[in-house]
Structures are given as structure tokens and as C-alpha cells.
């Protein structure tokens, strides 16, 4: 029995050392377990995504009649791992200080082939490490950002969560299902699309409208993203 116990002592010391010196060491194994049984839900349609981005771009140009996305730097990154519990929605990506990534920079989903437009807002850089960064996504409960809806550009608030909701939409705003929602958060590039209006209703106090969003991607199967390192 004692010999059996000694058998555990060395691996335990190794694990304790790893916990304190390299807590990310298990990521290669975790990545294997994490992707093992991914539910193959609605797959990204590149055409839908491109359409969404283009529509937001049209709104943007109509509204602002200026600016182009020239000069925007994107750093593409792979998704290492996702937050394993319920409380937050974060992903770890494989670029950090080594690629000049900084806190607060927007992270977008570019689609499977990474076409050149800006992509869809997915989150922002929360913490930066030497060769990786933690991204807080729009699916996190703590996420809040300013957005505009549709051609008229009604101002509202994007409230993150498992099912992100657009809140504080004026009651008289004429929005409809399929309208593109785009970010107008000051620190992000103008008119970065977020998703489309899926369902419209009234807030519990009946003062504002609220809308649920649909996204042309399956968040759980996202493997690559891009960080926009140079805003408008």
C-alpha cells in the first residue's frame, strides 16, 4: 500500500509545479476533449455572413457618408479554449503582446475563409498575456455596448448573455425582423455588425422595445477570430 502511495507522490509534485508555473499546460489535452463532441448545429453560411457585413457597411456609408475601412489592421487568431463554467463567456486566443494586441480591442468573427471585410463583432480583449489573450464575448452576461438598428439607425443597448438582447429601443422605433444591428461603441470601429433582429417585444415595464438577436454562426464551433488592432 505504501509503495502504491509513493507512486502518486512524484506525479503530484509535477502537477503542483504545473499548476503554479504553467497552468495552461493542459490546454493541448483540453483542446482535444473540448472539441471531441462538438454539436454540429447550424453551420455558418458564408453568403449570409457576407450579406450581413455588406448591409451594415451600406448603412454605415449612408449614415456617415464617409470613412473607409482602409488602414484597419487585423490579427487573425485561433481559439485555444473557452471558459469552462457558467458564469462568464470568455475565450482564450493565441495572440497577445507578441502581436501587439491590447486590452479593449474588438474581436471579430471573419467567417471560415476570413474574407477581407470587417466581420461580425464577437467581443473585446479583456486581458493580454505574452502569447495569448482573453476575450470577453458578447455572450457574457456582463457585456453591454451601444448599438444601432436597421437603416434608420435607432440607438439601443446590447446586453450580453447566453441569448444577447437589444434593450432600450424607443417604443416608437419601426424595427423589423432581419434588420442588421451594428455596434456604435466609441472604442470600436464604426458600424461593426453584430447580428440580425430575430424577435421583437416590449420590455417588462412596457416603456421600451426589446429584441432578440440571431447570429449567422454557431459560437460553440468557432475556431478562429480576428483582432482589430487599428480602429477608425
Amino acid at each position, binding site marked *: 500500500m505504501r509503495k502504491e502511495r509513493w507512486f502518486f*507522490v512524484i506525479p503530484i509534485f509535477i502537477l503542483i509545479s504545473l499548476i503554479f508555473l504553467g497552468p495552461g499546460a493542459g490546454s493541448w489535452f483540453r483542446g482535444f476533449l473540448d472539441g471531441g463532441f462538438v454539436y454540429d448545429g447550424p453551420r455558418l453560411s458564408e453568403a449570409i455572413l457576407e450579406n450581413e457585413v455588406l448591409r451594415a457597411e451600406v448603412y454605415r456609408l449612408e449614415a456617415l457618408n464617409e470613412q473607409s475601412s482602409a488602414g484597419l489592421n487585423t490579427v487573425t487568431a485561433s481559439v485555444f479554449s473557452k471558459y469552462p463554467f457558467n458564469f*462568464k463567456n470568455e475565450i482564450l486566443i493565441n495572440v497577445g503582446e507578441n502581436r501587439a494586441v491590447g486590452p479593449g480591442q474588438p474581436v471579430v468573427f471573419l467567417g471560415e475563409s476570413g474574407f477581407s471585410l470587417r466581420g461580425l463583432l464577437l467581443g473585446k480583449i479583456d486581458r493580454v498575456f505574452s502569447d495569448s489573450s482573453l476575450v470577453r464575448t458578447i455572450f457574457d452576461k456582463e457585456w453591454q455596448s451601444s448599438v444601432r438598428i436597421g437603416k434608420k439607425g435607432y440607438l439601443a443597448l446590447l446586453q450580453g448573455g447566453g441569448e444577447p438582447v437589444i434593450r432600450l429601443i424607443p417604443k416608437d422605433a419601426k424595427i423589423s425582423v432581419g434588420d442588421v444591428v451594428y455596434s456604435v461603441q466609441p472604442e470600436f470601429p464604426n458600424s461593426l455588425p453584430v447580428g440580425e433582429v430575430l424577435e421583437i417585444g416590449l420590455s417588462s415595464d412596457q416603456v421600451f422595445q426589446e429584441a432578440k438577436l440571431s447570429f449567422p454562426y454557431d459560437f460553440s464551433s468557432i475556431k478562429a477570430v480576428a483582432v482589430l488592432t487599428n480602429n477608425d
Partner: protein
Amino acid sequence: MTRVNEGSHFFFLSLILVLISIVIQLNFDDVFSFRPDFVLAALIASAFFLGFLELIFVALLSAIIINWQPILSYEILILALWPILVYFLNRFFPGKAWFNSLIMTALGILILYASVILRNFFDSFSLIALDVSVCLVFGFVIFNLFEKLKTN
């Protein structure tokens, strides 16, 4: 004292169950849009059957695998330390071991939530209740698997 067995022959069962729990926990939200704390439930059930060193090994291994960032966090520390604390405490618990394991599972999940979202703890009550309920069922199943192995 409610310790069931300190033998190391439960070690491999525990290791397999914890690895299965990790896989289920990491992929559960692909289908059900939330992530129950199955790994914690499995570790706590294991704390009633494993020896001290075996439990430390399994708990640390789980923490290393499930950690999602290059630094340690409260969640990971609680995940690794709570089952070890349960191991020491359970000898003082009155009553049946299976019942104690469920109480400790529920308590562990509440502590885990409180450590991260203390501010929004009561706003997230329905999510926490759902998590605890699902994990109690899962923990009960795991505990019974250990019991089955013991009686066999």
C-alpha cells in the same frame, strides 16, 4: 465517520469518471446552452472513496486540464481544493455518505458561483438552481457507481 473505503482500487474508476465529466462539461453548452459543474460533482463523489494522494492527483489533473487561461483563477482553485477539504471534513459528518456527498456538491457549486459572481448571485438564482439540480443527479449517479464497484 462516513468514509467508505480508502483503497486505491477506486482510482482508475475515478480517473475515468472525471475525464468523462470534463468532456461532458466542456461540451454540454453546445446542446443545452449552459455548463453544469460536473467535474466538481465527480471530484466530490470521489473524495468519499479515494485515498488522500489519489484524490490530490485526480483533483490537480482535473484543474490542469480544465484551466482555460495561463494564470490561476478562483474557480480553478476551488475546483481543486474543495474536494480535498471534503475529504478531510467527511469523517466528521453525521449521516449517510451519499447524502453528505450531495450536500457537499451543492455547497461547492454555491461557493464556486459566489467566488465569481457574488454581485449578481441572486440575479442568477434560476441558473444556479438548475446547475445544482443537474449536478446533484450527476453526483448521485457517480456515487452509486463507486458503491456498485465496492459491493462487487
